[in-house]
């Protein structure tokens, strides 16, 4: 039986539809909640978020995978209300965006404790929300190399993925030799890992995307829309055509089975201004039309946004 945990409860993978695979309802670094510069009223947050999700749904979007880690403003009760009112399935994560977003309590924790925490959030629930995490988030801290804490989190995530059957999504796919070594040591099949942000402007050159695919990992081209053509592009922006060509080249090289795409949206950013002109709906308004224009057929598009995500997100046990 195919099964995926959403914030409103488990659903069959057949119901997921078009999936935005690596997104955020609202992301902020831990501690930003202390700085009133970024505070928004609940009215503002709903106003910024609901129309984007509704439009996503109208375009045919079925599921939004939120990979906002434990200390980054993850707010499951809020996600539940958004999902219930817009009809978009929302999948929440357990885990951390990177060691540098894990607060001291978790930064001091052992692999065993972290794994137990992740497993609890996947099998019992997140806090007192009753919602179970559907994926595990891990990532590489700022600086380009995995820290000791990053490695502890990756190892705990591998154990939790094996114990529960949910997949892992990574923030950044740099330093992949180290992460793959950990996953192999723990015995986790690499098709249960989506190595994300292979396409971002800062890290694309340093990311061995094809090598990761050859090892059996999935590769995320999931920062679509962060373009140098934007009015005020972020530091990880990249020329639109360059990113698209990178992705098309990966597909043409025969890695379609292992490719996933998303836009790393921040519907209502929490501790930073966000990027003007970038939204979740880049996926339907720009990315999919660009792929069609480049000659990508419908079967491939369905594979990328419906079939592969369903296969990846389905709990495997």
């Amino acid at each position, binding site marked *: 039986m195919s099964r995926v945990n959403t914030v409103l409860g488990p659903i069959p993978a057949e119901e997921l539809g078009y999936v935005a695979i690596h997104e955020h309802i609202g992301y902020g670094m*831990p501690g930003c909640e202390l700085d009133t510069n970024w505070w928004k009223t609940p009215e503002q947050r709903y106003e910024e978020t609901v129309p984007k999700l509704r439009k996503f749904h109208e375009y045919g979007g079925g599921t939004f995978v939120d990979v906002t880690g434990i200390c980054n403003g993850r707010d499951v009760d809020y996600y539940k209300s958004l999902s219930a009112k817009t009809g978009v399935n929302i999948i929440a994560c357990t885990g951390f965006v990177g060691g540098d977003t894990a607060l001291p309590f978790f930064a001091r924790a052992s692999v065993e404790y972290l794994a137990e*925490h992740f497993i609890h959030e996947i099998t*019992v629930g997140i806090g007192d929300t009753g919602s179970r995490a559907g994926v595990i988030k891990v990532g590489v801290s700022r600086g380009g190399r995995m820290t000791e804490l990053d490695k502890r989190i990756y190892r705990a995530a591998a154990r939790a993925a094996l114990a529960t059957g949910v997949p892992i999504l990574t923030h950044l796919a740099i330093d992949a030799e180290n992460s793959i070594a950990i996953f192999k040591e723990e015995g986790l099949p690499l098709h249960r890992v989506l190595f994300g942000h292979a396409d971002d402007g800062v890290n694309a050159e340093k990311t061995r995307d094809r090598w990761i695919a050859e090892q059996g990992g999935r590769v995320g081209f999931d920062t679509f829309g962060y373009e140098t053509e934007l009015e005020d592009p972020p530091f990880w922006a990249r020329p639109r055509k360059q990113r698209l060509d990178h992705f098309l080249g990966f597909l043409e090289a025969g890695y379609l089975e292992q490719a996933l795409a998303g836009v790393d949206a921040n519907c209502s950013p929490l501790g930073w201004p966000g990027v003007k002109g970038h939204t979740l709906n880049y996926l339907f308004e720009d990315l999919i039309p660009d792929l069609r224009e480049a000659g990508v057929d419908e079967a491939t598009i369905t594979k990328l946004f419906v079939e592969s995500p369903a296969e990846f997100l389905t709990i495997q046990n």
Partner: protein
Amino acid sequence: MTAAESKTVHTVLGPVPADELGVVSVHEALLSVVPGAQYAFDITMDRVEIFETIAAKLKDFRDHGGKTIVDSTGMFHGRDVKLYEALSRSTGVHIVASTGMGPEEMLGGYFLTPQTNPPTPWPAEKFADLFTKEVTEGMVVPRVERRGAAGLVATAADRAGMTPTEESLFRGAARTALSTGVPVSLRYGNDAVHDLAFVLDEQLPADRVVVGDLDRKDALAAGAPLAIATRGAFVALDHVGLENDAHASDKERAALVAELVKAGHGDRILLSSNAIGVAKGQPDGDMGRTGRHLQYSYILTTFVPLLTEQGLSDEDVARILVDNPRDLLSVR
């Protein structure tokens, strides 16, 4: 009427005349939560239980003659301003809460690896702005509202030695103290005199600073309590009731107090126990090992007699427990 008597102190229920503070414990914790522990699957935060536990400890403090508790845990270690307001109303004990953060290890990534390229940690000026608003506009209930004014800025340095971000924290705390009139409470890293120098370098008068942790064995060995008092800052012996590998005994503390009084620094001494009302997320057994399970009244019930044995007069004791904290906490 002395200058201090005309002044006020920021408590969680609003300004209180400084001469109403009575006996003060300057370095305590009400609710102490290791950052992140609030999300842990195996930690419960039962608000009723937390309230009742802390209220019982505050009443015990009050029943032994205590009138004011300073929660010196800063803005990111479990501080719960609404809870403290209710505790103060219910027990009659004045509660002074703090802004500030530190050591660096306890900070969130927002301050250490911000979403900029490169991810440069916050400079002193930004910390000063954050802390100052907690005094001038009120302490935050994150993403909800501001409440009453913080009564002091608390920060700390790493035991292995002050980090560059901690230098920013210390300088930021000093700037907030200068612009708002509240004092700075700092816990030193591995060199009290060195660490104090950063706040003094910001032109903050030494008598607006209390240096904590000065009853650690390494502080005593270095002669730090006398050195700090000589510079004009307040000396906090703030682990009264605790004796372990790192901390002196109460007997040694009492002797040190007598020594400082004899040397003419009776107006620089502060006492506290670093007791915790309710702790969440501390490593197993840490509460017992660090003595933080102590009652806030421990100084009044158990330590004051040791001071009397050392020959301190009632006036000396009153100066340490009442006058000195009043002078420190009075907003200038």
